[in-house]
C-alpha cells in the first residue's frame, strides 16, 4: 500500500471513530449492555461452578469471554448501519468520485471498526479485573487477548460490510442483529461444551464458529497459554475474516460500478 493510500485509510478510519464517538447511544450501549448481561449471568449461573468438571471456581472469569464477542457484534452492527447509510445518502459515491482506490474505502471502514472494538475490549477487561478476575495468561495474555479481539472484530466486521455493501440498506444490516444473537446463544457461551447435556445442543455449539472464538478468549482468562484453543480461535477468526473480506470486496466491486 502506498503512503497516500495509508493516509487515506487512516482518514476514513478516523472518520468512522469520530462519528461513533459523537453519538452517545453508540458509545454507551456497547459498553453497558454486555456488562449488564455479564452481571446477570455471573450471578445467576454461579451454581454451575459446582458441577463436577467445571474448569474454574469463578463464574465471572468463565463468563468474561462473552462480552468480547458480544461487543464486537454490537460494534459491527452499529458501524455497518452507518456504512449502509453512507451508501443510501450517496456519501460513498462522493468518495468514489475521488481518486481513492475502492479497497481503501473498505479497509478504512474496517479499520475504524477495529479501533472501536479494541477500545471496548480494554474497557471490558478493566471491569473484569476490577471485579477480581485474574488473567491466568498474565499481562502478555491481555495483549494477546486484544489481538484476538481485533481478529474477531475483523471477522464480524467484514461479514457486516458485505451485508451493507450488498444490500445498501440500514434495515437489512440491523436485521443481522438477531441472527448474530442466535449464533451467540447457541454456543458454549454459558457452559463448557463437554458439560452440555442435550446432544443436539452440544452438536450445534460444536459446529458454531462462535464457540471457538469464545473458548479462545476464555482460555486466556481461566486456563493460561493453551495454545491449541487459542490457535483454533485465531484460525476461526482468520478464516471468517478472509471469507468475509472476499465477499465484501466482491460486493464493493459491484456497488462501485464506476468505470
Amino acid at each position, binding site marked *: 500500500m502506498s503512503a497516500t493510500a495509508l493516509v487515506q485509510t487512516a482518514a476514513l478510519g478516523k472518520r468512522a471513530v469520530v462519528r461513533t464517538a*459523537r453519538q452517545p447511544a453508540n458509545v454507551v450501549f456497547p459498553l453497558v449492555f454486555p456488562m449488564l448481561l455479564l452481571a446477570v449471568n455471573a450471578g445467576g449461573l454461579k451454581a454451575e461452578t459446582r458441577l463436577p468438571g467445571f474448569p474454574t471456581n469463578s463464574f465471572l472469569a468463565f463468563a468474561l469471554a462473552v462480552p468480547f464477542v458480544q461487543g464486537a457484534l454490537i460494534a459491527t452492527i452499529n458501524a455497518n448501519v452507518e456504512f449502509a447509510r453512507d451508501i443510501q445518502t450517496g*456519501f*460513498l459515491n462522493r468518495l468514489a468520485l475521488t*481518486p481513492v482506490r475502492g479497497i481503501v474505502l473498505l479497509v478504512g471502514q474496517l479499520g475504524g471498526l477495529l479501533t472501536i472494538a479494541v477500545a471496548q475490549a480494554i474497557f471490558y477487561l478493566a471491569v473484569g479485573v476490577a471485579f477480581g478476575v485474574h488473567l491466568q495468561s498474565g499481562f502478555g495474555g491481555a495483549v494477546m487477548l486484544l489481538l484476538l479481539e481485533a481478529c474477531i472484530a475483523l471477522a464480524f466486521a467484514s461479514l457486516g460490510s458485505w451485508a451493507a455493501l450488498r444490500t445498501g440498506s440500514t434495515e437489512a444490516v440491523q436485521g443481522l442483529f438477531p441472527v448474530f444473537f442466535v449464533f451467540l446463544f447457541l454456543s458454549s457461551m454459558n457452559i463448557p461444551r463437554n458439560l452440555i447435556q442435550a446432544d443436539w445442543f452440544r452438536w450445534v455449539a460444536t459446529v458454531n464458529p462462535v464457540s471457538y472464538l469464545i473458548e479462545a478468549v476464555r482460555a486466556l482468562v481461566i486456563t493460561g497459554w493453551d495454545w491449541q484453543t487459542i490457535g483454533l480461535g485465531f484460525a476461526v477468526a482468520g478464516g471468517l475474516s478472509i471469507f468475509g473480506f472476499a465477499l465484501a470486496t466482491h460486493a464493493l466491486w459491484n456497488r462501485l460500478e464506476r468505470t
Partner: protein
Amino acid sequence: MEASRENSIEAHGLVREFKKGPRAVDGIDLRVDPGEIYGFLGPNGAGKSTTVHMLTTLLPPTAGTATVAGYDVVTEGPKVRKAIGAALQEAALDPFLTGREHLRLQTTMHGITGEERRERSDELLTRVGLTEAADRKVKGYSGGMKRRLDLALALVHRPRILFLDEPTTGLDVQSRTALWVEVGRLAKEEGVTVFLTTQYLEEADVLADRVGIIDHGRIVAEGTPEKLKAEIACSTVEAVPADPDQRGAVVSVLERFGEQTTGYGPGSIAVQLTSPNGNLAEIVRALDAGGVVLSQLQIHEPTLDDVFLAKTGRHLEGSGGDEEEDVEQELEPARA
C-alpha cells in the same frame, strides 16, 4: 483544439437501461463547450441524474459513448474523475462531522495534504460563506448551507469541469440566488465548464448559456434559452372570466386568435396566439364585442415552459409528477 477538448463534454447515443424499469436514458447526444454552463432541464424522473452518473463514471452506459475532458468515461474512468468535480443530487454529508472535517476528508482523498490542505479549505469555506459555521456539525446546517458545503467539496481539487445535479432543489429563493452567483462566477472567471441539471425553468433561463430539455430519457429541444423561446415565438394570452358560465363564450372568442392550450390555473383559459406580436388591443375589442366580463387578462411572453409544453404536451412544473417538491418549493421562502 487540444485545449478545447480538455474541458468539454461529449456524448453520442448514450443509453442506460435498468433491469427493472424503463430506459432511464434513451439515446442522448450532447456537446458542452469549455467554459460553458449547460443547463439540463427536465421533470422528475426524466433521466437527468442517470445521465450525470454516466458522465461522472459512477454508472456504466448500456450503449453509446461519452468523453469528458477528452477522456472516455468507460475506459478512462480515473482520468475523468481527476478532471471533474461533482455535487450529486443528494447532498451526501455526514451529519456528525463539521464542515471543516468534511473538507479535510475530501482533500485527503484527493491527495492534498499539509499546508496546502489548510489553505485550500479556508479559501473554499470563505468562498461559499461557511467560515463561521465551519466548526459546527453538519446536522445543524440549513439546506442552503449543506448545498454550499457540497459545492465546496466538489471544488477542492480545482476541477475543470463541474457537474451539479439539481443543486437548488428545495432551497429558498435567497440561497438559490447565492448559488447561481457562485456558479456563474466559476464559469466566467475561472473558465470552469458546468453541467447543471434542474427542474426549474427559471434556473436554466437565468444561469445556462445553453439548455437541453430532457423528457423520458430523450433530449426534446436544445439551444440557447433565447433561441428556444424564439422558436415558439408566440405569446400566450390567459383570461379568467368573471362569471364561470361565460367560459364557453370566452373560449370561442379567443380561439379566433390562436389555439387553446393547457391553462395556468383553475378557471383560467389559455390560448397560444398564432401571430408573433400578439395584438392585445384587437383581442380586448373582440372580447368586448362578445359581451363577456373578465376578472383577469394577461399576456405571457414565451418561457421555457412553453417550449416544454410545445414539445411534450405537458407543463414542466406542477404537472403532477412530483407534487411534494413543488410544495416544498413554495413553503421554503415562507419559512425563511
